[in-house]
């Protein structure tokens, strides 16, 4: 175990969290990510029992889930309590695929809000019909000039997975929208 102390994407020891009325914004620093690619025409593997989903969808299997990120390419994710070589674990599950560790490449910010508030908030964040973003839907879109994956975990929970270097700007965008909706200062 290394003696270096890691920082979260928002550059703190502990993940950040804030509440804006009924909306809670939290940094999820315990998400392991690895991209998985299969060559064109190859049969989809089932790492961790996952059915690799079609465009725009999330599939879940116990502790793991997967969402589509490109032609023949998915992101596999798992909540991991501590550091691990997630790419190696994925590769072990799907040896014929190309796997790249992405846990440190992204920041995951989670929004929790009642359904109505979530719908109103989405209108201020991304150019998608909130009603089309049903639970277990994942989209790759733009938010405040940044590229993000938006994952609807449930009616009341939404994850924004953006590039790690944009973590502060992504937090600012989400916090500003949540605060404005509740007439609060950021």
């Amino acid at each position, binding site marked *: 175990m290394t003696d270096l102390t*890691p920082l979260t994407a928002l550059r703190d020891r502990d993940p950040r969290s804030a509440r804006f009325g009924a909306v809670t914004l939290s940094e999820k620093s315990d998400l392991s990510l690895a991209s998985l690619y299969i060559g064109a025409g190859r049969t989809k593997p089932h790492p961790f029992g996952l059915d690799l989903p079609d465009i725009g969808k999330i599939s879940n299997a116990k502790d793991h889930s997967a969402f589509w990120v490109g032609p023949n390419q998915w992101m596999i994710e798992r909540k991991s309590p501590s550091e691990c070589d997630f790419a190696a674990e994925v590769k072990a599950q799907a040896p014929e695929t190309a796997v790249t560790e992405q846990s440190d490449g992204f920041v995951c910010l989670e929004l929790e809000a009642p359904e109505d508030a979530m719908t109103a908030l989405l209108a201020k964040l991304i150019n998608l019909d909130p009603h089309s973003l049903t639970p277990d839907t994942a989209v790759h879109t733009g938010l405040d000039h*940044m590229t993000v994956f938006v994952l609807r975990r449930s009616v009341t929970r939404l994850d924004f997975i953006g*590039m790690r270097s944009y973590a*502060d700007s992504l937090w600012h965008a989400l916090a500003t929208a949540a605060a404005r909706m509740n007439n609060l200062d950021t």
Partner: protein
Amino acid sequence: MSRISGGIINRDAPISFSFNGQNYQAFEGDTLASALLANGVQLVGRSFKYHRPRGILSAGSEEPNALVQLGRGARLEPNARATVTELYEGLTANSQNHIGPLKRDLMAINDLFAPFLSAGFYYKTFMWPRAFWEKLYEPAIRRAAGLGRLSFKPDPDQYDKGFLHCDLLVIGGGAAGLAAALTAGRAGAKVILADEDFHFGGRLLSESYTLGDALALEWVETVLAELNSLPNVRLMPRTTIFGVYDHGIFGAVERVGDHLPTPHKGLRQTLWRITSKQSILAAGAVERHIPFANNDRPGVMLAGAMRAYANRWAVTPVQSARDPIAIFTNGDDGHRTALDLLAKGVELLGVIDTRADAPRFGDYEVFASAKVSDSKGRHGLAAIEITHKGQPKWHKVGALGVSGGWNPNVHLSSHHRGRPIWDDDLLAFVPPKDGPKGLIPAGAAAGRGCTGDALSTGMNAAITALGILGLPAHKISLPETLSEAHKQEAFWHVPATAVDKKRQRKRAWVDFQNDVTVKDIALAHQENMRPVEHLKRWTTLGMATDQGKTANITALAVMAELTGKTIPETGTTIFRPPYTGVSLSVLGGGDIGQNFRPKRLTPTHKWACTRGAVFVEAGQWMRAQYFPKPGETHWRQSVDREALAVRAGVGVCDVTTLGKIDLQGKDATEFLNRIYANMMGTLPLGKVRYGIMLREDGALYDDGTCARLGENHYVVTTTTANAGLVYRKMEFAHQCLWPELDVQIISATDAWAQLAIAGPRSRELLARINDGFDISNEAFPFMSCAELTICQGLSARLFRISFSGELAYEIAVPARYGNALIERLIEIGQDLGATPYGTETLGVLRIEKGHAAGNEITGQTSALMLGLGNMVSKKKDSIGAIMSRRGEMATESKRLVGLRPINPNDPVVAGSHLLKLGSVLSLEHDEGWITSACYSPHVGSAIGLGYLDRGDARIAEHIIAANPLEGQNIRLEVVSPHFIDPEGERLRD
């Protein structure tokens, strides 16, 4: 006071406001315009060019005259239309475009010089003498230009943005819009109903008639109550749809806080991007006026607006309630105003109707076949001259309503360059057939302005729109309406009497805001500026903030009369966004100041902040530029110290921003061979190779390194600037050019924190964190790479590469550990002289070494110019390889050289042009340019890199670096681009 009975104002909620420092009272529901009229204020501003006294002309967003400055201090807003400014407690407004008091504007002298200020006077007058332009004419014109003035202070309010999606967007909440929204809403479609007004209802709020058994307002309230109860309908009052864009996208501004004394939490307006599958244009119509001599006096108003003020706001536009009002019309609509005013007990002089068979609908006098031929009144209308049966006669009036017909609001329908179509019956342009796809006109906007027609066309438009979407919709029960008289004749302006020269000198205004008169149009005709595009630019017609909403068609009619053509033959005015003015603040969507654009922070950002780093923007990245130490007062001191520390000991620099692309797959090697110009297929496992990529045209695209981590696993680095572009190029090549290749391409730039450890003691420093991996020169020579662990088990990647020319490494760790790693390296390397360095020093070191960067790889340079022509392999094909061998590129003679001043104290300025000693400083003798320059603490003078004709054969030659911008001509010596270690021994040590 001219307040009358009725109206949709809340008399239990009085509001205080001020205009030009005078306090007034009005009521909730008033606009600034209705409130001013209620207080007997007719004079509200001055015209643009002649500074003529002006009053309120309309009751809507088409207003050309009543432009005021709202607010004060940083919230000062110029050119606000009083007619759409919702009154609130404490509102402060001031008139604009005058020097001295509004009534005694010193600039009114312009009106005396009107004969010299006619259309086109700019183009003719300011041509000579030429020398006067810059110092006299331009400053004077700039001072005179514009109406209101900006505060020049930062905007204190906030703006927001958002996205909405619906099945049907209904633009306009009048009779047609409400019927459409109700039809679609009941059918279950997702509907957005938007109206620029703060109260839905459109003209229904301004008319006195009934719908079915109820007043129009009651029907409006009933429909709104139902629409509000439907979860699939979103009502958006105070929202202007200002533009129609491709693919069913509409731009809209919602005025969230403009009607509040201070916007709540500072949020003033929201910019909405609405995506709608279908849309209905129910934006109503704008009334035309009829130009006559001196028709611009305060008190002259559109008759429909006069009706609106009377019915909705319970005011008449007279200074005193006893002043009589007259109506001048060419159709039946003017008579409706007369009837409504009579019903309100207003003193009515009568209706001056241009038609010989003018009807009479009530108990008032009708002047048939008559015209208003002149007016009097200094700051407000006092009298009009009616020419009836050939005899002019003056009549005292306090206001005049003018009705020249109605123009459908076709603006949005022509935003895709659709040309409106002339309708001979309506005497107006109606929306084009080739307008935006999915946009269906209805109601007055479609030329169907009678209430019954508006309701039914709105309903039918909704049924049609939903039918296209496959959503069944049914007819709704519409209220019964009375038939409305709407005959009119084509009468466009009152011509000056040909025999009366005094009258010929008088002016009749067509475009009030830009002071364009009938005479100006005649002059344009005389000057052969007859096409509508020329007419517009020559006279400035329709080019003011109101876009000529009340003027354009009348101007076309006048020109048509002059040319003897029909109006559609004369031309068609089309429009472009925005429909009404949109502030730049809201277009920015609130992204101002530090939030103007997102920032990317490096993994060591926190540590760099604690070290007092000065940051510089590199694209969206914030990179540490240098790390000043106490006592260093100039950036050069810090940078010189950092550069010398690297050359003497060891320095550490965050180079995470360089692009990192992970490639895997059995065809990864072949893929890279096709992407890179040099050979990558022979790269052994555990090795790194410098590579160059070319554009399709053969020019240099990017450079970087390629490391082979596994049999089918590579990591490519790119320049910071081109990280995204190279990744995109690779994706394009894979998906479109060579989809058969089995390769995964994915960016890993953010996943790894990468630090450069450079300097003769870098190996020693690295050894202190290394868990035991053999980094000796023998085991891990220059251009090696490996995966290892450091700091007791942390997975890392090590690359022995050098941008500085020194013994150097780049080490990559998971991004979360980047901050701790640099902290550790500097801490444990104190005795080795470990020094953090930033981008400025990075630049100095690479220039000293002669390494190319973005300054050298500009998109106009080639591998040959960099001296890397041989790297473009002929043993394989790659993107751009063949094109790089074409004539001009293959014979390009410029080569990268180093440059050093003969006098060590002289500067070397990047961008300077290189010339032979003694040659004339001209482009013909230009031999190249300086690409990069810096002060080199190693050399002891400024140095530079540059491209010079046959540069490689001119080492030791003296040349001139010309910098004409600053009058500099510096003598330089041409040297090797490698100022340090030309043999490359240090980095291989």
